[in-house]
């Protein structure tokens, strides 16, 4: 038997898991509308590949990954795209995000699915496939999985940790997945193992899920794998990646390091399952298992399509009358869904209907009495009350000295605080302030550098211009001198040119300027040419330029708007929208519309 390690801290809230495990996973019926956000993973926002009116098939890619750390998004069912527009996001802010609205046609017709044999392919191809299939960490972090499947070059990969701990109260989706689809989970783990080549594979499950442990053990035995399925003590947050790694391997991954640097990597069981579906069945991530529980009549797990609006989903569970809100995720780290039409996303592992009895209104906050309870339960062994103190005082430098970025926002500290201080919110506040400031600082540094660069360039150009002028003047003077000499040689008694006549600076200067700044518009030249009547000339020039521009536009339709891709068309539409919004132009000119495909 593997000897387990301990992590410090942690709490034991009521698990509330039994309500939702009595029924097997059911497939949720097709909703009437789907709102699939394009940005569902860490990293770049995928580019939309469809536009309103397109017909899509189930599994068809509707958003292409943008950059390596990004993940594709797919149509969850067949139907027609109603719009590609901003829609409220599954996010605590209640802000909107670019989403594809799909009206299902009811056929749920798959597009082409091409299974691959991952054993026979180069690892890069498999990673690419996972990226194209939109496989991301389904434990809640939604980090693109392919990005974690490259072993560190310097540190040998020792352990692959598979996270089936599921420590948050109420959530049972991984539990049911492991019970019902153990074999496919293990096969998915096999893919990760093949890509990472670790020495050992450890699957950690909290010991309050004996059925899942048994199912996985059976599957491992059946497939002849050498994975170790380990029951770990039930204590929140044992399912935090870092905590599970600690418990199973004894390694502690600090915030500043990646786990591969310590020779260990961690994936969620549901991620392993989707990886297997993507590789062996060619099925991208279009649905996920979501626990619907809390204040509902029929708590259970549903396999729901990504993009299902919350309102339609919660109907499946028949929420009780006193339900006053819905949490996405668990009660320890989740957030309240901002609106009923916010969609389920890849990160949605659980929806909890809340009620005043389930989550009683919070008692008023008291001052911190420095009791140290929070420090006692912090799994990262931080001093939350110190971080709280400095966050409250907006002293963000100090919060960083107390390692605020090592805080995983697990909520243990708020859970135990006798003064009921919303510590985690203070930390989130401090973190986002620090990030914003960092961004601002970087932008300022960049602006400063660019400003200095531009100033230097202007100076240099001025110097060059002066040099040119000097040269021209010298040439002029030489010419004059030569002329003078010639004159002197010819008829004597002719008036010699005044000795000290300065080189005629005025005219050449203007010439030089207009020659030099050749791209500079007519306005400049006009201005310089007629300094006396600058205003009028300028106006005339502008009018002329405007006229020319209009003529140009009328004459030639812009070439670069032919043959647009859907994505480009979308971008143009967005720009037009912005233009209208800023009230620059009442509406884009008609010819613009015509040139659009």
């Amino acid at each position, binding site marked *: 038997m593997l000897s387990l390690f301990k992590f410090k801290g942690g709490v034991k809230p009521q698990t509330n898991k039994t309500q939702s495990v009595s029924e097997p996973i059911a497939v949720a019926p097709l909703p009437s509308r789907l709102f699939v956000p394009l940005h569902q993973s860490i990293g770049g926002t995928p580019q939309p590949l469809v536009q309103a009116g397109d017909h899509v098939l189930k599994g068809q890619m509707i958003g292409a990954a943008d950059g390596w750390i990004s993940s594709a998004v797919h149509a969850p069912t067949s139907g027609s795209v109603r719009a590609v527009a901003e829609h409220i996001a599954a996010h605590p802010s209640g802000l909107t995000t670019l989403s594809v609205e799909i009206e299902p046609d009811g056929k749920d017709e798959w597009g082409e699915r091409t299974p691959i044999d991952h054993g026979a392919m180069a690892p890069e191809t498999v990673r690419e496939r996972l990226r194209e299939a939109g496989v991301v960490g389904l434990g809640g972090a939604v980090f693109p999985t392919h990005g974690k499947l490259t072993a560190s070059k310097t540190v040998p990969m020792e352990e692959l940790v598979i996270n089936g701990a599921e420590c948050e109260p109420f959530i049972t989706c991984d539990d049911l997945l492991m019970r019902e689809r153990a074999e496919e989970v293990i096969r998915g783990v096999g893919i990760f193992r093949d890509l990472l080549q670790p020495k050992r594979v450890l699957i950690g499950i909290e010991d309050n899920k004996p059925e899942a442990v048994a199912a996985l053990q059976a599957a491992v035995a059946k497939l002849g794998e050498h994975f170790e399925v380990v029951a770990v003590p039930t204590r929140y947050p044992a399912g935090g990646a870092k905590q599970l790694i600690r418990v199973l391997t004894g390694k502690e991954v600090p915030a500043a390091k990646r786990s591969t640097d310590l020779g260990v990597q961690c994936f969620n069981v549901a991620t392993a399952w989707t990886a297997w579906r993507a590789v062996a069945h060619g099925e991208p991530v279009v649905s996920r298992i979501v626990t619907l529980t809390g204040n509902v009549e029929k708590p259970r797990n549903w396999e729901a399509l990504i993009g299902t609006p919350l309102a339609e989903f919660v109907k499946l569970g028949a929420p009780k009358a006193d339900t006053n809100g819905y949490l996405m995720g668990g009660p320890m780290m989740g957030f309240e869904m901002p609106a009923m039409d916010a969609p389920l996303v890849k990160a949605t592992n659980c929806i909890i209907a809340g009620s005043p009895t389930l989550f009683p209104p919070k008692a008023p906050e008291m001052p911190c009495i420095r009791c140290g309870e929070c420090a006692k339960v912090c799994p990262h062994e931080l001093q939350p009350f110190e971080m709280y103190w400095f966050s409250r005082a907006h002293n963000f430098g100090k919060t960083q000295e107390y390692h605020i970025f090592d805080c995983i926002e697990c909520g243990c500290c708020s859970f135990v605080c006798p003064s009921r201080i919303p510590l985690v919110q203070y930390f989130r506040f401090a973190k986002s302030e620090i990030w*914003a400031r960092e961004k601002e600082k970087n932008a300022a540094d960049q*602006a400063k550098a660019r400003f200095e660069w*531009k100033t230097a360039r202007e100076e240099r150009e001025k110097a060059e211009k002066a040099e040119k002028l000097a040269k021209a003047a010298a040439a002029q003077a030489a010419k004059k001198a030569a002329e003078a000499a010639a004159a002197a040689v010819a008829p004597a008694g002719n008036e010699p040119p005044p000795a000290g006549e300065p080189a005629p600076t005025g005219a050449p200067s203007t010439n030089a300027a207009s020659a030099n700044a050749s791209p500079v*518009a007519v306005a400049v030249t006009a201005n310089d040419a007629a300094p006396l009547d600058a205003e009028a000339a300028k106006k005339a020039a502008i009018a002329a330029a405007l006229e020319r521009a209009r003529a140009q536009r009328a004459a030639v339709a812009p070439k670069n708007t032919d043959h647009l891709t859907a994505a480009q068309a979308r971008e143009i539409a967005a720009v037009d929208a912005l233009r209208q919004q800023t009230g620059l132009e009442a509406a884009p000119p008609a010819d613009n519309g015509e040139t659009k495909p």
Partner: protein
Amino acid sequence: MITAIAIMALGAVVLGALLGYASIKFKVEGDPLVEKIEAILPQTQCGQCGYPGCRPYAEAINKGEADINLCPPGGMEGVQRLADLLGREVKPLDAEEKPKAVAFIDEQTCIGCTLCIQACPVDAIIGAAKQMHTIVADLCTGCELCVPPCPVECISMPVIGENLDNWKWKYPVIELKKVA
């Protein structure tokens, strides 16, 4: 008595020597205060402070020629931080605080005169003569310097609203008074 005085004197001499040495050894080049002031200024380079850029304003503050409340992009927070740094009194900003905006060129109207390029302090506009111009939004500091030169008035300054990228967790509201 004499020994005591001698010891004191010796101590004074030794410490003085140490201090003198340290001041030579750890001498800081340049004027770090100007750097510190400049680090607080937002580098928008807009000239609204009446100086041609943030650096000159920083120098003016350092010399005591300028007040600390002249930089509108820095906002009240900037004034506060300058006051903290310099030990001066906080003053209300000498202008209205504006939300951050970036320039936007209406490409349909632009006549390609390049005047805005020359005005932009941070080279955030790309384009060439008689071609339409556009703003590189990531580089734009929102200084508005390109707006007045444009002969066809096609540059506007839309405000950057709150979006998922710049959204911040709010400071927890403490409702103590309600109870009692």
